[in-house]
């Protein structure tokens, strides 16, 4: 909590509870959280109390690796309905399932030139800060086609 990344000096909020591991004040260092079940061996997304496959409470939270491969994708050609907070003005963007070595596929937006999208391409987990209209900072994530340096 020593560093303040939000414009108002506050620690940013996470877009979803239990999704990240690490300090929210340093978004670039965050890892995606997973939950591994020691009963059935499944790894699910985020930090959860019960395995969504078998219901077991014998679970442990782990950091998921940054690199994945694209399993399937689409391009959203229209502005999503409701309280969408993507870039303005709206631009078509990629959505896909990114397969990770831990044995799960993560639904994500894709930060990649649309004409380059193809099944099997490598992608990297990229947390980022987004500012709401009221100035509040939010940590969200995407998968990017170019690996970022750690800084």
């Amino acid at each position: 909590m020593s560093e303040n990344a939000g414009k108002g000096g506050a620690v940013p909020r996470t877009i979803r509870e239990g999704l990240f591991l690490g300090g929210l004040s340093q978004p670039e260092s965050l890892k995606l959280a997973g939950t591994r079940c020691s009963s059935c061996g499944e790894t699910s997304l985020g930090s959860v109390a019960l395995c969504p496959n078998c219901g077991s409470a014998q679970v442990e939270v782990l950091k998921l690796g940054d690199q994945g491969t694209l399993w399937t994708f689409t391009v959203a050609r229209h502005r999503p309905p409701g309280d969408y907070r993507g870039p303005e003005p709206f631009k078509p963007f990629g959505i896909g399932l990114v397969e990770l070595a831990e044995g799960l596929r993560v639904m994500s937006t894709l930060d990649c030139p649309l004409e380059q999208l193809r099944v099997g391409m490598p992608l990297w987990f990229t947390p980022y800060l987004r500012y709401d209209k009221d100035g509040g900072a939010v940590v969200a994530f995407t998968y990017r086609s170019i690996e970022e340096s750690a800084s």
Partner: protein
Amino acid sequence: MTDVVILGIGIHPFGRFDTSYQAMGAQAAGHALKDAGVDWQEIQFAYLSRMYLPATSGARILKTLGCTGIPIVDIEAACASGGAALRQAVLAIRSGEADLGLVLGAEKMPRGFMDPSMIYSPWQIEMGLSLNPAYWSMRARRHMYEYGTTEEQIAQVAYKNHKNSVHNPNSMYQKEFSLEEILNSPLVCDPIRRLEICAPNDGAAALVVASAARARQLGLSGKPITIAACAHTVARYSADLRCPIDSMSARTSNPGPTEEAARQAYAAAGFGAQDIDCFEVQDTDAFCEIEALESLGVCAPGDGGQLAMEGVTGITGSQPVNMSGGLISKGEPVGASHLGQVFELVTQLRGAAGPRQVAKPTSGLAHVLGAGGNCAVTILKA
């Protein structure tokens, strides 16, 4: 086990209307009662299938026919709501507690994409992961990658269903489109195009159901249609790439919800896909029909793209599919869609479908699949 039959069917056309949901629902219910030759005062229970209507919609619709004191219950299971409601009616009759009931589906929905807060979490909406067609399209993309399914094959399904709709007065769109028009229509979510997806809309459909014994007592002239099976399932872990999932396993291979519901339905009916004469299946997007037919066992996995191309699923084909025009043409008033499929199958089994009539069918299958992996399969027998 008690046989459950359909005595009467009713519908309010699917489309966009100024009419209230109460009036649409009451019209469909009234038509079903009249078709059955049964008075509302004789009905012992009623279920309303709906997703986007407010609480107690069933009572608000049906009390306009007379406050008879019967239990009226609203049922919701996303796109499978109609199957879930029909299944409860079958179970109520099989329990012996009742032998004559009404199942009504009704919906009234705004134009455009469905309200995402109904099924998505706020973070999914903020990030733009709340487009239902995105999920349908990702399934199509993966199928193309694994099996070589083509955009032309997907468009052919839309072509067939739009063509069938021309003969269905209850369909929202009743217009044929050329393959070129379909393939040149704008992309909604790649590779799915505007003329390949269905629209949310308004409509209602109703069934009067009874035990076979009660049907015989009533001594009605027409031969009632038997509900050979009615199964409803919610997808097993990671078995379905359906909205609003945030992830899925890369390790498990549970059977999908359509496989599971079909397995249960075929076991109950005592016959399978190859013995069924006509189908109404979920075609919220044209690719969905291809996948549904594979999952229902009409063809092998990966072969679904060829069915419409080869004419197998046309009205005059060996296994006609979506004779009504499908949801692509009719639209999807979610609560009413499955009962609308059953309305079409009963019409076909009665030989009353006019220019879209399939040659002498004796059995039919209706399939719906939607949010959360909710799936229902109903099989009818003449």
